[in-house]
């Protein structure tokens, strides 16, 4: 045991931060570092499958590449609006901050919608996972059916990687919604859940995936009920870090998964 007596209760004692910033931000950085390993593992799994399999498919036609390019542009633009939201928050301009956060959320939503459309298209064409129900009445293309049968690693890693990223973007939009609108965002979230759940057919993976929004609404309600607060510039900046990370991950998924699997006819 130490003999040194430690004095407590010194008011106004200043302890400089080891990393020159506030704890919340360091916490978010630690989370992002661990999350980057999750995505790193998924990207490495995809690359492993690609290297080890000489018949790895290249199923993305021009329409998929154009779609993915628009998705990338939406994400990059959302990062710009996010950084402008952070700037508005430190300048104490709440109205501007809210509009920039809303613009970021809209760009994120556009990304998810475009991605969802592409998934639905690929699934109806026959690129699927065993857990996905078959699409009634859809004419599967032999090219995609063969890929699913002969190289099941492709749909497994493709849907795993892009699905994980889509989940992160969805949670990011919800996170920003809570920061921007607090309690007012909960009814909007519930409405979005109903639209996503009832607006998608029962065979779509998004029919069940929509329940993520319900779970998020419950979690956000509990958080806002237990700890109601006005979010300040540090909260906006920390949310921004998460959002930029989601953008950053896509900068690797887009070339590795889409551009490297292009089949231009």
């Amino acid at each position, binding site marked *: 045991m130490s003999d040194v007596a430690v004095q407590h209760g010194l008011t106004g004692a200043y302890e400089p931060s080891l*990393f*020159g910033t506030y704890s919340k931000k360091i916490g978010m950085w630690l989370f992002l570092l661990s999350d980057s390993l999750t995505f790193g593992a998924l990207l490495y799994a995809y690359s492993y499958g690609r290297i080890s399999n000489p018949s790895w498919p290249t199923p993305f036609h021009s329409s998929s590449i154009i779609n993915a390019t628009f998705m990338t*542009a939406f994400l990059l633009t959302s*990062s710009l609006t996010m*950084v402008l939201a952070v700037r508005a928050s430190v*300048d104490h301009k709440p109205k501007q901050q809210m509009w920039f956060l809303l613009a970021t959320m809209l760009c994120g939503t556009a990304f998810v919608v475009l991605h969802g459309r592409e998934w639905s298209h690929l699934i109806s064409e026959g690129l699927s996972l065993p857990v996905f129900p078959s699409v009634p009445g859809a004419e599967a293309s032999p090219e995609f059916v063969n890929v699913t049968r002969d190289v099941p690693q492709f749909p497994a890693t493709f849907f795993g990687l892009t699905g994980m990223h889509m989940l992160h973007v969805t949670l990011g939009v919800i996170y920003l919604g809570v920061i921007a609108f607090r309690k007012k965002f909960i009814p909007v979230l519930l409405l979005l859940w109903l639209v996503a759940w009832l607006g998608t057919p029962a065979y779509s993976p998004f029919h069940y995936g929509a329940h993520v929004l319900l779970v998020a609404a419950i979690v956000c309600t509990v958080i806002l009920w237990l700890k109601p607060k006005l979010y300040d510039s540090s909260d906006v900046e920390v949310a921004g870090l998460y959002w930029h990370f989601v*953008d950053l991950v896509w*900068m690797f998924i887009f070339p590795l998964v889409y551009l490297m699997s292009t089949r231009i006819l």
Partner: protein
Amino acid sequence: MDAVQTAIVERVAEQHRHHAKGQFFWVWGALLVITAIEVYLGYQNMQPVRMLSILMGLSIIKAALIIAYFMHMKFEVTRMRWLTMASLVFCLAMMCVFFPDAFRILHLAVR
């Protein structure tokens, strides 16, 4: 939030106020241009290994721009920059240990 944290938050906010907004537009423009180059390369019939090297190089540049400017890492203290980035690069590089096994499977032609 206690007084110390509030003081640090205010100091960080002050740092943000000193950055010109224009640099964010420049970075955004650069990211869009690099993306356009990547898409253009996607339409070229290049050898996969060569194409992968170029695309990954461009992606790393994009990632560096996002981390440095949008995630504010360029303006953090040196200790923060080195600890986070070095640990990240080290952990991701360690995952490369699996690739020789992928090549082994390819050469053995195991199906």
